[in-house]
């Protein structure tokens, strides 16, 4: 979706403001927000891509106004309700509805270190050969999907060079929407700054792009 989360190249947000000696969490609720998101994710009712899409659907004015972990709580609430693990009323009340079933959490404390250390690899084996290979010229397609996508707007329609083939990876545009992993070949593509931003830009941007985002350049 052409949302406000797709920020690459926008102007007007001001200077970057690093904080010296920044703590991992500024408030305890931020730590709980992170942990709740990871622990609830262990149900497997939504994918990482779906959780990103839930945050992208936050209305733009709210998205820009909210702090990072406020967005996480908003996204988590959406996911929990859509997965029917809780209702909007239960979230509003902070307690379970009368007669609601009690489940067993899938992630127990003793499994946390192993779970985090294992992660979730996204590379898959596919039978089709990759269309592109390093050195080939490609163009990022000018597409504007209304759902989740990882093709940033600033790259659409631009010509770059394939610099690496990563193998086949889970396709976010389907995986975010419950349409399955549909893995595709994934490429690292180098774009010259002047192609993206005009003649005076002399940097380079490397973007990881799925095969269906690309066409021959």
């Amino acid at each position, binding site marked *: 979706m052409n949302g406000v989360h797709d920020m690459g*190249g926008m102007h007007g947000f001001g200077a970057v403001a690093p*904080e010296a000696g920044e703590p991992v969490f500024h408030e305890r609720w931020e730590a*709980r927000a*992170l*942990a709740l998101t990871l622990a609830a994710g262990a149900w497997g009712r939504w994918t990482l891509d779906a959780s990103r899409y839930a945050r992208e659907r936050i209305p733009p004015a709210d998205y820009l106004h909210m702090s990072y972990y*406020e967005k996480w709580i908003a996204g988590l609430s959406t996911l929990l309700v859509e997965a029917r*693990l809780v209702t909007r009323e239960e979230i509003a009340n902070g307690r379970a509805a009368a007669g609601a079933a009690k489940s067993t959490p899938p992630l127990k404390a*003793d499994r946390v270190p192993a779970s985090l250390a294992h992660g979730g*690899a996204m590379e898959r084996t596919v039978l089709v050969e990759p269309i592109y290979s390093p050195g080939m010229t490609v163009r990022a397609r000018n597409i504007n999907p209304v759902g989740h996508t990882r093709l940033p707007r600033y790259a659409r329609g631009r010509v770059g060079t394939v610099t690496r083939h990563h193998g086949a990876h889970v396709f976010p545009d389907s995986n975010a929407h419950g349409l399955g992993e549909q893995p595709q070949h994934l490429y690292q593509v180098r774009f010259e700054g002047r192609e*993206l931003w005009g003649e005076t830009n002399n940097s380079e941007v490397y973007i990881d792009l799925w095969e269906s985002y690309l066409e021959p350049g």
Partner: protein
Amino acid sequence: MTLRVKALESLLVEKGIVDPAALDAIIDTYEHNVGPRNGARVVARAWSDPAYKARLLKDATAAIAELGYGGRQGEHMIVVENTPKIHNLVVCTLCSCYPWPVLGLPPVWYKSAPYRSRAVIEPRGVLAEFGLSLPDDVEIRVWDSTAEIRYLVLPERPPGTEALGEEELAALVTRDSMIGVARASQTKAES
């Protein structure tokens, strides 16, 4: 937000959706066990051991796993090397992708609109705000983390550190130098 998150947590605990002890364990992991000191050890090893550096640049996920690091948000790692003529900078313009196993959770500025919007279009301006002004002939490569590939910058080894051992070298490696917004320190780093 404190009350709102507390209410959500008590609801999820009451319904048996999350285990409060698991929440504590997750938080403990990222506050105490997983952070930029992991990445600093990877960099110091690469500076000290040319064979390790070669493995790191060829297959970063495997080389990082040799030191015991890996997992969530670091399943597919690539290390990019800074040289006198090439400077690398990592960003996630679409959200906040960041190599957790080697750097921990990202700082607020990395997740902020100013950094996400500007790193790709004016990296030199962003670097200057971090106090890093690079000569015009240095090629700047910006890595936008759009897939599940996570990028770690291998900063240049500071001059005058030839006599230092791996542990002393690791102390020079800042989080920011592994994102690419700073050089490694010549004196012991704070973060």
